[in-house]
C-alpha cells in the first residue's frame, strides 16, 4: 500500500459533531438507524462513535451494505473479497447506493459529496473510501478502465512490441489482458513449428503494465506527472514460469506496487490463464522521474493525456494552461 503523496488537507475529515460526547440519546438514534443491520454493525458503530477508532468502520460499512442487498445475495458478502462488485455482483443500483451513503453518513456522522460516489465500484472501493474519509486522508484515484486506444496513446512502448489489449488501473493495483494471437513476429522462431509465448516477453508484458500504472495510477502531486520517457527496466527477482502459454490463450496480468520512491518503483506481478498460474514475479523494479506537468513532453501520438489531466487534455496543449481557459480561448 502506498502512502499518499499529498499531505492531509483536512477537507475530508468527519464533521465536527463527532467532537460531542456520545450520549444515550445518540445510542438510541443509532440503534433505530441500524435496526435492520446486524448486531455487529451496530456494536462497531457504537465503538466508532465513542472512540473515533477507524478500525470499526469496515464492519459498519459492510453491515450497512448487507442491509440493502436482497437476502438471497447476502451470502456473497459473508466471504467477500474487496473485488466484489456493487452493481454486477450485489445488484445495488445507484439509488440503493444513495440509501447506503445516507445511512453511513448518518451513523458515522460524516458528509459525502455526490462526485465522490461515482467511482465506487467494488466493496473494496467503498471501504477504502470511507476509511480515507474517517482518517482525513486524500482519497485514492478510482479504478479506471483503459481501452487499447488510450493505452497506445500514453505508453512509450508501441506495437508490435506492446503486449496489453486492455487494462484497469487504480492507485493500488493494475490489471490487464493480452490475447496471444499467434501472429506475433517472434512466434515464427519461438519455437520451430511450435509457437510458445516467450517467458521473457511475458515478463516484458508485466513490466509494461507497471509502466501504465506509473503513468495512469500512481499518486502524484498536483501539477506533477511521471514522464513517460523516463521509465526503464532495472531488475527483477523471483521470476518463475509455471505453464507454457500458446496462441489463442488470454493472459490475465496483474501488478501491485510494493515500494515507490523516486527514482525507483518496485512491483509484484502475476500472470494467469483462466485460473491457472502462468508466471510469478516477486519483484520487478523500474526507474522513473516525476516532472512538472507543464514540461511533460507531448506523448507519441500527439496527445498530451496523462494522469491527473484528463478532461480538457485533448484540446489543451501542454502549456500548463488550465483546460477551462483553453476552452474559453478556443471559443473566442
Amino acid at each position: 500500500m502506498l502512502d499518499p503523496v499529498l499531505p492531509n488537507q483536512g477537507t475530508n475529515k468527519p464533521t465536527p459533531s463527532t467532537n460531542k460526547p456520545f450520549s444515550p440519546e445518540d445510542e438510541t438514534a443509532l440503534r433505530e438507524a441500524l435496526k435492520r443491520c446486524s448486531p455487529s454493525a451496530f456494536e462497531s458503530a457504537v465503538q466508532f462513535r465513542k472512540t473515533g477508532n477507524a478500525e470499526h468502520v469496515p464492519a459498519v460499512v459492510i453491515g450497512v451494505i448487507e442491509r440493502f442487498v436482497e437476502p438471497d445475495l447476502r451470502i456473497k458478502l459473508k466471504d467477500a473479497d474487496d473485488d466484489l462488485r456493487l452493481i454486477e455482483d450485489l445488484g445495488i443500483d445507484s439509488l440503493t447506493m444513495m440509501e447506503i451513503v445516507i445511512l453511513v453518513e448518518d451513523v458515522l456522522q460524516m458528509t459525502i459529496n455526490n462526485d465522490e460516489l461515482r467511482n465506487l465500484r467494488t466493496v473494496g472501493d467503498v471501504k477504502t473510501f470511507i476509511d480515507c474519509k474517517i482518517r482525513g486522508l486524500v482519497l485514492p484515484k478510482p479504478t479506471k478502465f483503459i481501452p487499447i486506444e488510450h493505452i497506445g496513446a500514453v505508453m512509450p512502448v508501441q506495437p508490435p512490441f506492446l503486449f496489453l489489449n486492455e487494462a484497469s488501473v487504480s492507485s493500488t493495483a493494475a490489471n490487464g489482458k493480452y490475447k496471444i494471437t499467434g501472429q506475433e513476429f517472434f512466434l515464427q522462431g519461438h519455437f520451430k513449428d511450435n509457437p510458445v509465448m516467450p517467458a521473457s516477453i511475458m515478463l516484458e508484458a508485466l513490466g509494461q503494465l507497471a509502466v501504465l500504472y506509473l503513468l495512469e495510477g500512481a499518486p502524484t502531486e498536483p501539477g506533477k506527472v511521471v514522464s513517460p520517457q523516463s521509465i526503464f527496466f532495472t531488475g527483477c527477482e523471483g521470476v518463475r514460469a509455471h505453464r507454457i502459454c500458446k496462441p489463442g490463450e488470454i493472459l490475465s496480468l496483474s501488478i501491485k506496487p510494493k515500494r515507490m520512491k523516486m527514482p525507483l518503483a518496485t512491483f509484484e506481478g502475476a500472470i494467469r490463464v483462466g485460473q491457472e498460474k502462468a508466471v510469478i514475479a516477486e519483484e520487478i523494479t523500474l526507474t522513473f522521474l516525476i516532472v512538472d506537468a507543464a514540461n511533460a513532453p507531448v506523448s507519441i501520438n500527439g496527445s498530451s493525456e496523462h494522469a491527473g489531466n484528463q478532461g480538457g487534455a485533448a484540446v489543451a496543449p501542454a502549456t500548463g494552461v488550465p483546460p477551462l481557459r483553453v476552452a474559453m480561448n478556443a471559443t473566442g
Partner: protein
Amino acid sequence: MPRVFITGLGFVTSIGNDAATVTRNLRELRHGFEVFPPFQKPEIPVKVIGTIKDFATNSPDPEDWTFPAGYKIKRELLRTMAPNGLFAQCAMLQAVADARLTEPDISNAHTGLYAASGGSPYLLHYHNDRLNKVGVMRCSPLGIVASIAGTLNFNLIAAFKIQGSSCGFSSACASSAHAFGFALDDLQLGRQKRMFVVGAEDGNLDAILPFAGMRTLSLQTDPNLASRPFDAARDGFVGTGGGVALVLETEAEVVRRGVTPYAEVLGWGQASDGWNVAISHPEGSGSAAAMTLALRASGVAPEQVDYVNAHATSTLIGDISEARALRSVFQDSALRPAVSSTKALTGHGLSLAGVMESAFCALAIREGFIPGNAHLTKLDPECAGINILRTTENTPPKIVVKNSSGFGGANVALVFKRVA
C-alpha cells in the same frame, strides 16, 4: 373499431381484498367502516373511515409494513411505494392472475397502464419534514418517487415492466374514471391491445382529514350510519383508501387467449360543469352531458340502461346535483334505470373511486345482481324521481352506466354491457 372487454380484476378495498369477498359484501350490503384510531382525538370531529383490513401501513418506512403473506414484494419495489402503491401492487397481482396473463402478455409494446392516485400526502409530509430536520442532502433519495402525485404509475410501470402507453391521471375523484376512458380510447384507436387501469389511495389521516376543512366529511361516530348517499340525513362522505386494478383487452386478445370476460366496455363520455372549483353544478349539467355523450358513443338509448352505479358520495350538494342529472338524462322515469351508490358500503375512494366502482359493476354483471343503496332510510325529496334500489336485486343487468365526478366539475360516464 375493436371491441373491448374487461378480463381481470383485483381488489384491496374496505369491503374485501379479493373478488369473492367483495362480491359477497356488495350483494349482502355489508359495509367496510370502522372507527379509525388516528381520528380518536377530541380535536378531530371525524371518526370513521372505510378501513383496509390485513394491511398495516402506518409507518413511513415500507419495511415496517405488514400485508398478507401471499404477496411477495421485494424491498427493491417496496422502498419506493406509498401505502397506495402497496395496495395497487397487490390488486395488480390479483388482476394479472385473474386474467391469466403471463409475463410476455404484460411486458410488451402493446400493453399499457393508466393509473390514478392522489399521491401520498402522508409520505410527502414526512419526507419534507426530514428534509428540514436532517438536511437537504440527507433526505431519502426515494422520497420523491414514493410520495408525489404519479407515484402510483411510476411504481407499477417499473414493477410490471410496462412498455406500452403509461400515464397518471389527476382529476381528483374522477381520476381513475378518466384513466379508464382514455385506456378505452387507446384500445379502440388500435394503439394498444391491452390496458391496465389502476386506482389507489392511502386512505389514511393525511389523505382524508384535509377534506374536513371544506366540511365534506361525515361527522357520524356510528360506522353503520356514516355513509348514506341520497338519504335525507346524510352529512358528508366517509373516506377510504385501497387499490383496484382492472384489465381491458381487445376482442382479438380475448379470443387469442381464450379467456371469459366479465363485461364489454361500450364507450365513455366526459364533460365539465364550467361552474366551481369544488361545488358541483346545481343542475348536474356536466354529469348529465357526460352520461349523454357516453350513451351516444356506446350506441345505447337511455331506456336501455338497467343500472347506474352513481358517483353519489353522501355529500349534501353532490348527491342532489347527480340526482338531477339522472332525471334529465333518463327523462324522469321513476322505474328505470335502477340506481345505487356503493359508496354507502365502501366510503369514497377519491382517485380510486371510478375504477373501483367500475370493477364492482363488472362483478355485478358477471354474477347477475344489482347492489342496493345501503343505509337509505328516508330518501331526500330533492333526490326523488329516480329508482334508487334499497335492496340488492338478483337480476343480471344488461347495460350499466358508471358515473364519476371530481373537483373542478369534471364528470365522466362509462358504459358496460353484459356479454351474451
